[in-house]
């Protein structure tokens, strides 16, 4: 096992089909899609449950159930039901993304100082304004940590796309194993790991930027 595959310039040619940059891009595309769809589904539900306090058992159980579902098994089931293609992969990855986002949205709102929420209502904010102007900004640190953990999980797990014939960095792993090219497997593992670290850095930076400094400062 060595790093020859990773450092071979030919594998970094963007034009070549199946090159590392191309696989990286398709990998990122699955990640972004799954995160976007997952957020669109999980965030409103989590915020609703956290804001109203209704149905908190859903937030807790969805979190646990989602975590215990094996993504590869779910993917195979979806392929059996829907056939090959991007859709089964996205469903499997989205199911992975929903629990941390839903749970953190719920927990973020629940953990807020209720006196501040009371003050927001008391000065005359409507329920929607209380949510968007007070609860959501205050819950952002918790929400972002949920989103970051979802992103990390999906970056690692999006490799399963290759198992059902799609692209992504999983190709390096699956194809490498198939032809006993461990240098290629190692290259795939390293690129996935680096991508995960970089993405988390970007999100950490985004978090600093969107979270109010007032929630970070201490006297």
């Amino acid at each position, binding site marked *: 096992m060595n790093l020859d595959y990773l450092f071979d310039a030919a594998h970094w040619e963007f034009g070549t089909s199946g090159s590392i940059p191309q696989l990286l891009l398709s990998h990122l595309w699955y990640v972004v899609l799954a995160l976007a769809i997952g957020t669109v589904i999980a965030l409103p539900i989590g915020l609703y449950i956290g804001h109203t306090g209704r149905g908190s058992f859903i937030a807790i159980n969805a979190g646990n159930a989602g975590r215990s579902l094996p993504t590869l098994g779910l993917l195979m089931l979806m392929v059996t039901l829907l056939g090959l293609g991007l859709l089964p992969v996205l469903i499997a990855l989205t199911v992975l993304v929903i629990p941390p986002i839903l749970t953190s949205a719920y927990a973020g709102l629940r953990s807020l*100082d209720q*006196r*501040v929420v*009371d*003050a*927001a*209502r*008391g*000065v*005359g*904010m*409507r329920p929607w*304004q209380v949510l968007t102007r*007070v609860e959501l*900004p*205050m819950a952002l640190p918790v929400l972002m940590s949920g989103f970051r953990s979802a992103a990390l999980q999906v970056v690692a797990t999006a490799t399963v796309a290759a198992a059902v014939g799609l692209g992504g960095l999983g190709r390096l792993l699956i194809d490498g194993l198939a032809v006993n090219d461990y240098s290629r497997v190692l290259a795939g593992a390293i690129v996935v790991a680096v991508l995960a670290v970089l993405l988390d850095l970007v999100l950490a930076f985004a978090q600093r930027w969107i*979270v*109010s*400094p*007032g*929630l970070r*400062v*201490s*006297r």
Partner: protein
Amino acid sequence: MITFDDVVKVYPGGGTAVDHVSLELPTGKTTVFVGPSGCGKTTSLRMINRMISPTSGRVLIDGQDVAGQDEALLRRGIGYVIQHAGLFPHRTVLDNVATVPVLLGKTRREARAAALELLERVGLAPEFAKRYPAQLSGGQQQRVGVARALAADPPVMLMDEPFSAVDPVVREQLHREFLRLQQDLGKTIAMVTHDIDEAIKLGDVVVIFRQGGVVAQVGTPQELLADPADEFVAEFVGRDRGLRSLSFDTAAELPVLPVPAELVLDEAGRPVGWRTGADDVRPTGGTFTSADTLRLVADLAILSPVGIAVRVDGDGKADGITPHHDLADYLAARRG
């Protein structure tokens, strides 16, 4: 004027928080709700801005039932100050104060300019504007809370234990500023406290609640101290209410005797102490002016090594003395 018309609040599960309360809170005055915990004072306050709805009865502001009004619009027209201030931690001090004007449709720029002026009004320097609530002390946060409530210049203010989360020294300071501010602004204020001394100090009218959400007595602080309706009120206002009621009168009409030779003065005529022996001069323990309260005079007479309170003029020069028996005679004559 805020009117409580036979208001009842029963919580599901059976507890009666407020039991047939009828009250009138005069316009431009501070009315303080005071009582032991669980007496319904906070529930009553929160029914004024519909944070809680009454089970039966009506709450009216200037004759208009609050139940018929849009919740959010009603609340924007009523200042709201709560314990621990309840500031928005993610917003700067300035944006906290600008909250209600922005809700009312002012541009952020206009609202901030007005907010800056308000900060000064509640005794905060402009450099606090850009800070976040977590960077302020409890007393400073409470000032911001008051500024936020005042920002839209509402005629009515609700204050729920506004000064209970700060230490006694800061509380004393906030009390003074509250009284000064209220003298300027003349808002119709409803305030909740569990501290009877605070109620007597700040209230024009004091409403004493007892357990079960019943009003025990309504009156001016003087009336409550001089003439408690029953044993509960007497107990609640405290044992030394006779002495405390002296706080409401100044020493302007208290007769004084000429300054005797035993009172040692400095070159400027200011009292230094009492000569009690050839080489023995003991400090007076303090002085009063004719603008001070009779309570202070009584206190000084007790503290004094010779049982005599010393009066000074505006320059601090001793201009008369009152021995404690003269004070007692004066109080006795006043009663007659």
